[in-house]
């Protein structure tokens, strides 16, 4: 909601009578001197309003002495006094003004002056982006925000951190709020698909702004759920008194894999390597050639076949098409925007797809000058066909190594060849044709809000928001081959319905007293309820080989169990907020919130608060005029977090629970979750200091923030010792520290007819584990350890010390002193490696050139000082352990490994020997890679047709463009062969999956053409 409503009553004016309205005219220009079209003009204290035309001109009912409020398309608002009826040119956008973002209970994010650390990303970055989810767009555009994808399949989940990871469990993602609806943290909602990101339901084209709240001053309003940061999405709306306008736009993109440097062996190379593994046996008597021939004979290679297994299951062209339509307009009392969009993605794999249809409607209505209503509704339908990923034999991307190129796709009879070494019976081409994993997801997100000024300067605001999502999933394994052959065909169906609603209300007093004291006081309540319903059915021994439960075996002994589940958690809260600005120069604000959350132990209540202060120094008389802006600010607050609740994991922690268990055909009781009555909130205490400045007519401006963020009593699903009955329970086990600096800047070296606009950001964050309950304890997960005093998720593994040139044995450091080596993997102890999968430094840089109708923009992102690993590297480079399972290898082990009887000085890889059991291939620092990279995230060349065209055709605007996404990546580690922004889907979106390459669907490069017409 924007404040378009009067502080003075129109009624009062009417009663006072005898007021003569006149037409006030003027032209609005933006900071760069261009006419500002479509800006909304309203007059404070009246309901008169108008919209600027394409020349920025307007005419509105007002009188001298009134105040004009101008709101541009971004929602930026600026006020102008009316000294005369012909105003001439009004310069809009300087000084920098604030975008209005509404938080809980109608409270605005900032009033008058910036107090907190936040970043706003605008619609230009979202429109026609070839991405499935809005979070992907934030990558590189927000200082301190780190993004990586758990799967490149559209609609998969992502890991997003703001100012590092603040929790040991659950998603580190921020809380998403869409038009006041608290929609969660983008946590996986799927039961059959590898992952499904609920944010996929938000069409990026419908977004006006996304505000990323980082410090405590604003996030405290979200209390117990705001600690990871909050992302407030505001969708597009219409404006009052505007003729109805239409926009049609479309984008067509071609995709390929963004980064893959894995150099797989050809058949020729593979048998040479296989021969080497035989030849390297100490007792082998033949020549190397004999060994190769022996290996060829054993493997059954025909000497010709050289199958590219990935190529066999991928499309020649992967594509994404987006169509978008919208209409906006408004009358005197009502405004609206209606939009629809369709995205059709045909990803890399044969038969995989992603289609999204969405429709949204926003309407605002003024009942009276003091009573306004608003509503936003959004419906989305997604249908997607994905793959099993990670370690599943059927994962087509895994078959790059699970099947050697020596095996043909088809046997001599033309059937799918099922003799495939270690992966026999899982012919990926056959599986891709018959088996599938698909889902249809319907999502409704809607909210209604109302504001009433019930006494002078006293307001009541209420918002009811709801999200309803239905996910229908099917997985089908044909009986022809693979897993399905073992089960006579299997079909699994899941239906998941989630229903969330929140209702927040506030009463407030807002007044500007004597033009100097701007005072706002709010009191409010919020109630949230989250429900989850899941139905899971499976059948096998299918009578017909088709994906229907009804075709399942009816034989009593072959009926598979079906499951259902209902989960619910609630939170209710009370909050208060005070804002006070003196003389438009000095601001203070304070927030307090009490949350009561059903998922905690015996004590379910928590208090959260923040204070902030700001000083707008540029407004002081003593400041020189070249300083357009100088703003100092500080905030401190304590905000809560319930890190597990959004994933529906362990939401009952007060008690240890016993549920159904079975043994043979008898039913019994089993411990279904281990409780912890002492569980309390984890609390994030954050100090933020900030400085914003802008110089020399805004040619250069920057914001600098430093912060110190400490998570206290962080919750961990702490493992329980085996001897106390293995399991895990949520416990408050320790503290997590994040300290960092964020800088964002803009530079306008040329700002005339030729424009060069540079926007950049840079951030540093150090994420460490603070005091822990047990300072010696190490919780280990995927070779990352959590231990007091170490980096968060620091790699904890054995150290690789190279190859013994005499014997070819792998050498490992015995311990962290790295002084002694051993060939016995088990004799080496793991130790902390000083690196984590989360980048320490991140940067984003956008450079835009505009000349007449042509614009060219380049957007680079970079992440530095972090490390990544391939989850399957010990198979991909197995040193011969699986030589006879015929798992393909990367070619380096053939050309650069120890060979019996040769001079082996300086070889990188140890002896390759059949059945190698030395564990030389086991995970160690041998497989740790630097993830550091710079990425050309987006390049766009656009042309907007000029006035001549517009006049000739009657079309208001026509833009055509060509755009590239993820165009290029520079990596700094020569041995990094996979995408350093790829994660595993295996860990439900938790930090454990970060930087763990798992052969999920790859991150794509897209080149697209688009056109956008306004009329």
């Amino acid at each position, binding site marked *: 909601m924007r404040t378009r409503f009067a502080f003075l009553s129109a009624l009062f004016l009417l009663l006072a009578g005898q007021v003569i309205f006149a037409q006030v005219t003027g032209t609005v220009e933006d900071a760069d001197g261009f006419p500002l079209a479509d800006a909304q003009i309203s007059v404070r204290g009246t309901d008169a309003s108008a919209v600027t035309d394409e020349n920025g001109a307007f005419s509105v009912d007002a009188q001298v002495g009134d105040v004009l409020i101008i709101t541009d398309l971004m929602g930026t608002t600026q006020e102008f006094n009316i000294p005369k009826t012909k105003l001439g040119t009004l310069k809009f956008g300087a000084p920098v003004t604030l975008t209005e973002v509404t938080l809980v209970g109608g409270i605005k994010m900032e009033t008058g002056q910036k107090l907190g650390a936040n970043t706003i990303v605008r619609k230009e970055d979202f429109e026609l982006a070839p991405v499935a989810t809005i979070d992907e767009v934030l990558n590189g555009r927000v200082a301190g925000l780190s993004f990586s994808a758990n799967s490149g399949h559209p609609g998969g989940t992502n890991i997003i951190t703001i100012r590092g990871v603040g929790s040991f469990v659950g998603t580190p993602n921020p809380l998403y709020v869409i038009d006041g609806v608290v929609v969660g943290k983008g946590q996986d909602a799927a039961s059959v698909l590898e992952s499904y990101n609920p944010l996929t339901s938000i069409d990026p084209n419908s977004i006006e702004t996304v505000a990323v709240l980082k410090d405590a001053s604003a996030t405290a309003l979200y209390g117990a759920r705001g600690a990871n940061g909050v992302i407030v999405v505001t969708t597009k709306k219409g404006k009052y008194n505007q003729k109805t306008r239409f926009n049609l736009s479309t984008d067509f993109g071609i995709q390929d894999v963004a980064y893959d440097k894995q150099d797989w062996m050809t058949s020729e190379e593979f048998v040479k390597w296989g021969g080497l593994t035989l030849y390297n046996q100490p007792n082998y008597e033949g020549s190397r050639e004999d060994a190769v021939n022996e290996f060829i004979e054993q493997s059954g290679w025909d000497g010709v076949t050289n199958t590219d297994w990935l190529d066999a299951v991928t499309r020649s062209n992967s594509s994404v098409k987006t169509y978008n339509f919208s209409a906006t307009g408004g009358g005197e009392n009502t405004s609206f925007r209606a939009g629809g969009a369709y995205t059709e993605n045909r990803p890399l794999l044969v038969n995989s797809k992603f289609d999204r249809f969405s429709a949204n409607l926003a309407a605002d209505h003024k009942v009276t000058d003091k009573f306004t209503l608003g509503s936003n509704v959004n419906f989305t339908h997604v249908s997607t066909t994905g793959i099993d990923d990670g370690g599943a034999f059927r994962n087509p991307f895994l078959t790059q190594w699970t099947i050697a190129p020596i095996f043909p796709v088809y046997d001599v009879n033309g059937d799918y060849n099922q003799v495939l070494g270690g992966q026999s019976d899982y012919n990926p081409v056959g599986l891709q044709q018959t088996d599938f994993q698909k889902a249809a997801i319907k999502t409704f997100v809607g909210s209604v809000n109302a504001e009433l000024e019930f006494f002078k300067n006293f307001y009541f605001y209420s918002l009811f928001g709801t999200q309803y999502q239905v996910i229908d999933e099917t997985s089908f394994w044909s009986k022809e081959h693979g897993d399905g052959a073992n089960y006579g065909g299997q079909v699994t169906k899941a239906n998941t319905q989630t229903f969330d609603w929140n209702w927040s209300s506030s009463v407030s007093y807002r007044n500007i007293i004597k033009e100097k004291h701007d005072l706002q006081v709010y009191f409010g309540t919020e109630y949230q309820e989250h429900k989850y319903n899941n139905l899971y059915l499976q059948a096998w021994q299918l009578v017909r080989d088709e994906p229907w439960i009804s075709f399942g075996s009816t034989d009593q002994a072959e009926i598979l169990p079906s499951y259902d589940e209902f989960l619910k958690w609630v939170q209710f809260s009370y909050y208060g907020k005070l804002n006070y600005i003196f003389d438009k120069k000095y601001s203070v604000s304070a927030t307090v919130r009490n949350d009561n959350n059903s998922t905690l132990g015996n004590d379910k209540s928590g208090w959260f608060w923040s204070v902030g202060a700001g000083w707008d120094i540029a407004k002081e008389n003593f400041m020189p005029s070249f300083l357009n802006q100088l703003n100092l600010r500080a905030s401190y607050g304590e905000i809560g977090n319930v890190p597990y609740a959004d994933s529906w994991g362990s939401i009952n922690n007060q008690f240890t629970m016993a549920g159904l268990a079975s043994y*043979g055909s008898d039913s019994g009781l089993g411990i279904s979750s281990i409780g912890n009555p002492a569980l309390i909130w984890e609390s994030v205490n954050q100090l933020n200091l900030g400085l914003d400045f802008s110089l020399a007519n805004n040619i250069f401006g920057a914001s600098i923030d430093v912060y110190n963020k400490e998570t206290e009593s962080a919750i961990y699903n702490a493992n329980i010792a085996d001897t106390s009955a293995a399991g895990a329970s949520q416990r408050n086990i320790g503290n997590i520290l994040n300290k960092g600096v964020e800088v964002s800047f803009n530079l306008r070296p040329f700002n005339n007819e030729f424009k060069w606009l540079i926007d950049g950001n840079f951030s540093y964050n150090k994420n460490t584990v603070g005091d822990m309950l047990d300072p010696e304890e190490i919780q280990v997960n995927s070779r990352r350890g959590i231990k007091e005093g170490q980096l968060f998720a620091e790699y904890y593994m054995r150290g690789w010390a190279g190859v013994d040139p005499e014997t070819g044995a792998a050498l490992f450091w015995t311990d962290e002193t790295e002084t002694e080596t051993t060939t016995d993997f088990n004799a080496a102890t793991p130790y902390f490696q000083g690196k984590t999968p989360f980048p320490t430094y991140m940067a984003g840089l956008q450079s835009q050139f505009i000349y007449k109708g042509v614009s060219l923009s380049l957007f680079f992102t970079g992440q530095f000082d972090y490390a990544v690993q391939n989850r399957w590297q010990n198979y991909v480079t197995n040193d011969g352990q699986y030589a006879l399972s015929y798992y393909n290898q990367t070619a380096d082990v053939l050309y650069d490994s120890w060979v019996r009887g040769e001079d082996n000085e300086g070889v990188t890889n140890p002896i390759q020997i059949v059945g190698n059991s030395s564990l030389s291939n086991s995970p160690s620092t041998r497989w740790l890679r630097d993830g550091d990279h710079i990425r050309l995230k987006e390049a766009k060349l656009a042309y907007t047709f000029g006035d001549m065209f517009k006049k000739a055709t009657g079309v208001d605007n026509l833009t055509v463009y060509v755009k590239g996404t993820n165009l290029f990546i520079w990596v700094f580690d020569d041995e990094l062969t996979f995408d350093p922004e790829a994660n595993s889907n295996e860990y439900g979106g938790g930090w454990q999956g970060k930087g763990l390459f798992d052969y999920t669907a790859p991150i794509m490069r897209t080149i697209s053409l688009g056109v956008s017409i306004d009329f």
Partner: protein
Amino acid sequence: MIFNTNKMKITKILITTVLVTSLFNSCEEERLDILPVLSDPLETVIVDEASLNEMLVGGYDQLSNATVFGANISIYGDLFSDNTFVSNTNDGYFFQENALAISNQTDLGFLGGLYKSVVYANIVLNNTLQDTSVVQNIEGQAYAMRGLALFYIVNLFSSNPTSGQYQEFGVPVYTGPYNPSENYPRKSVAEVYNQIISDFENALANMNQPVNNNKGYLNPTAVKLLLSRVYLTRGEAGDYQRSLDYANEVINSSPSQFGFVSNENYVSYFNASDIAVSEDQPETVWEINMTTDNPGLNAAISSFYHRTGAHGSLLFRQDFYSSFNDGDVRKSLFSTSGAPTSDTPLGVWTTKWPRTTSEGNFTINVKILRMSEAKLNRIEALYHLGQTGSALNELNAFASSRGGNTYSGTDLLNDILTERRKEFFGEGQRFYDLKRNNLGYTKLTNCAGSVCTVEANSKWMVFPMPENSEMLLNPLMTQHPLWQ
């Protein structure tokens, strides 16, 4: 326009009242008390005999996990011996175990699994129900379950009682109600055995009538058979006689549903997919009941042992196979066809664990305790009691009854253990047979890794407490000296 200002005021007051009440009336404390629909707080679930029995069944469910008796304990009993090896053609399962690539980082999963059944037994035994005969019988089984779990745990994680080695390094023993936040230290081996024997005696005292009437549940015969093995293992003064006595009781005075398998039925008793022939048989004393999804097709024991199993890769060594003469009925439980050519010499499959049952596509019940063991325990006890003549006679009688080679008795203990090896191959007994008698073993062929001869009482006969799931989490735990 004329306004009635009084009316407006009243309207405003009314609206304000409604708004302010609506602001605060939605939040009530009781809304926070949400319990899941599919489970109940543990402290409230045991309310009657039926629910007490359900908790006991839950304990069996834990024992039936693939990492415990569902598959792995049986598999390890052969793999950590001279019996089986993992083929060179494998998909990585048991690969490190096969190479004895074990370190204190290794977690084989059975420690947590076995202690879970201890916890379930404790929950049952700490019930507050009235002491009826049904309750007593349930408690009897819980005692048996705890004794069984502790017996396997101490066998796996401590040195043998008669080894004279590291006897203060037993395993944790506790009997109180479930407390997940409490940690427990090791007790001495002797204390653990006292608890095991006391649990088994309590089991016998309480189990007057069977509650769950099939061989999937522990019963007095099973407890007696276990006691005969426990005493054979502890070997204190009088223990061999006690072992002999309990073996005799099993042989001579078991109820009618127990009996010895005949030679004609011997092969089908194991490899028939028809469950009428292979499950709940007289020969079986205790087995793990299996259904479709327990423990899951891919983790089932047959998945690894059977030639067509999803991870079929466990093979017996040629030398062991050749030691059977052709008349030995047990030789029919091997299959030489389809052995992976990547192994030199070739391995031999067993058909003891059929891939499917007549009831569907899942593994047959996993036999853990059999009547025949009583005879072999008796022979071993006789040997330890110095009655070598009787021992040799009975040993040869047993071998002949299977059609196998008889023994000269020049190395009688070795002969007894060889016969046990032939009787129980693939059933996970070999490791315990050797350890109990303070013996090591040699992998004559198909040896992966560098350790092919395992010395008696070496670290390979004891398992390390796993670093991540025990040592780092339990400050009271100490690593076994052989693994320090």
